């Protein structure tokens, strides 16, 4: 699954594409499945043709998590939430199920950063 994101020019707000418009909530983003690459490309091209509305238009990869879908990359989850050190700032302030699902999502790394690498004699 994919969604398409950008930053709004006038204030820098993170926005997502939804059926002809840019919306602020990740939960409202239009989803693109397998075989919709051409649509994704068309929306990105359309976004790039709106230089006075948005900047940095690009698709993001999503994966299923408990409670819905979330961006695979941590960076995109933070863009969809707001800063984790200030839980009342940014989009996360509205709360709700989508926000909770994003907060608890994990990436695709398999390693958990092993520390037991040296055998004590």
């Amino acid at each position, binding site marked *: 699954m994919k969604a398409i994101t950008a930053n709004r020019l006038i204030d820098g707000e993170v926005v997502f594409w939804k059926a002809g418009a840019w919306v602020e909530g990740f939960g409202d983003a239009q989803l693109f499945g397998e075989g919709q690459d051409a649509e994704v490309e068309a929306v990105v091209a359309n976004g790039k043709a709106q230089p006075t509305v948005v900047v940095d238009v690009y698709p993001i990869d999503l994966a299923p998590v408990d409670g819905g879908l979330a961006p695979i990359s941590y960076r995109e989850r933070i863009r969809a939430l707001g800063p984790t050190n200030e839980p009342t700032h940014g989009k996360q302030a509205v709360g709700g199920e989508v926000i909770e699902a994003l907060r608890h999502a994990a990436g695709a790394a398999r390693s958990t950063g*092993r520390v037991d690498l040296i055998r004590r004699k």
Partner: protein
Amino acid sequence: MYLYDPIDREFLIDRSNEFRHQVARRLAGELTEDQFKPLRLMNGLYLQLHAYMLRIAIPYGSLNARQARRLAWIARTYDKGYGHFTTRQNIQFNWIKLKDAPDILDALAEVDLHAIQTSGNCIRNVTADPYAGATAEEIDDPRVWSEVLRQWSTLHPEFSFLPRKFKIAITGALTDRAAVKVHDIGLILRKGRDGAIGFEVIVGGGQGRTPYVGPTIRSYLPAEHLLSYVEAILRVYNRHGRRDNIYKARIKILVAALGAEEFARQVEEEWGKIDHARANLPASELARVRAAFAQTRFEALPAVSDAFETARAASPALQRFVRNNVKPHKQPGYAIVEVSLKAIGQTPGDATAEQLEVVADLAERYSLDDLRVTHAQNLVLPHVRLDDLPAVHAALEAAGLATANIDLASDIIACPGLDYCALANARAIPIAQDIARKFADPDRAEKVGELKIKISGCINACGHHHVAHIGILGVDKKGEEFYQLSLGGSGAEDASIGRILGPGLSADKVAPAIDALVDRYLDIRAGDERFLDTYRRVGLEPFKEAVYAQAD
């Protein structure tokens, strides 16, 4: 402190008007993003993850109360009520709207502040010892020379499009609180054999993906030649610095490629071609700048304050604060007071609008209207009378600003990281908060002693992790945050680059690993060794074992 004259003020207003027109043209579609981006960056405006970020220059980290209050007002009016002090003594606001930026620049210009040259491939804000003009250690006041360099470098036509950004730091003291050895140019004021003043000139230090402790290319440069010599350095760099690869474009790469000796030879050769009388600052102008900093009106006070001694004897909290946050002043009866922006669990370097107003009031009332920002993301009240220390401490305590942890394990430098920054790979702030909580017990923190922990969310190293006693670098592995630890760095006068401890750790394992490192240090330290000293004596292995060995 230095005050702007009418020409400076007119210039700032013109510059702000120019940017207002540029923003209007961008919003109207007359400028493309590619055309506009360098223009907004020249005014310190970045596009970050959630909004625009405005970085405001605080020349050599020095503010007056009026300026600090204006920053508080901007935080409240245009941001979410707080600002973030950076490792280059600047302040950043994280929630700025493009449409508001010209109004903010106007508001800054009214108090002689701006965001010029806080981004772009130019000479950035010159940083200096935050104890300047207050410490007895200093040979000369580095603010004088910082201001000279600031005026010279602002909109310098020859050096506005360098291969890459260029950062200069100055200290007048042997104790290096300005990280001069990891700057593009580091200047240490020295006294010559004839008693005159000069500079040791260090070039090509830096952090980022290729960290270097800069070599000294001239051990003594008579101070009056500063501008011509810096001009010669920048000319050699501007001519030969690489422009084909952004990662190899800083002067440190050129200095390392040529070797310090050859680089120095080229600088001296270039310097020989410069008309020194034209390039150097006239003595009259230097005297004018110097006079602006010589006006600090200290009172003649006894070295010991009965009021302070009485209050201290009665208050363990004040005793702790004095042990950690209060430093000796050159003037009898005065002290330098560090204000920690590292309360346990807080975002390192953040100050709320209310806190900024509290320190502004304290600076005005108790510190000769002088407030400083340190590269460790704390504030300094440089000139507090010992008589006033109990009152200052009480006011700081009421505002949540009296954490007595300067240079202790919870005084952590952290970049904004992935919570805000478009370049970051991992978060830095929550890691700092986790670690600080491990040292929330102030007795334990003091027992551990000086321990400089610094965290960067990416290899650009804004969080100075390379020069930390314990450095932490965030990396991205398939969308998960991992952290690489390094030990043994220092950004002070004993500068060194840290060495990587072992494989990266997941976010939840970082604070326990720091705990393990500190416990091992406490086990093996000899006498009053700092963590850094113990590391330098025993090396990496005992610490590696402490973190990576299997539990019994």
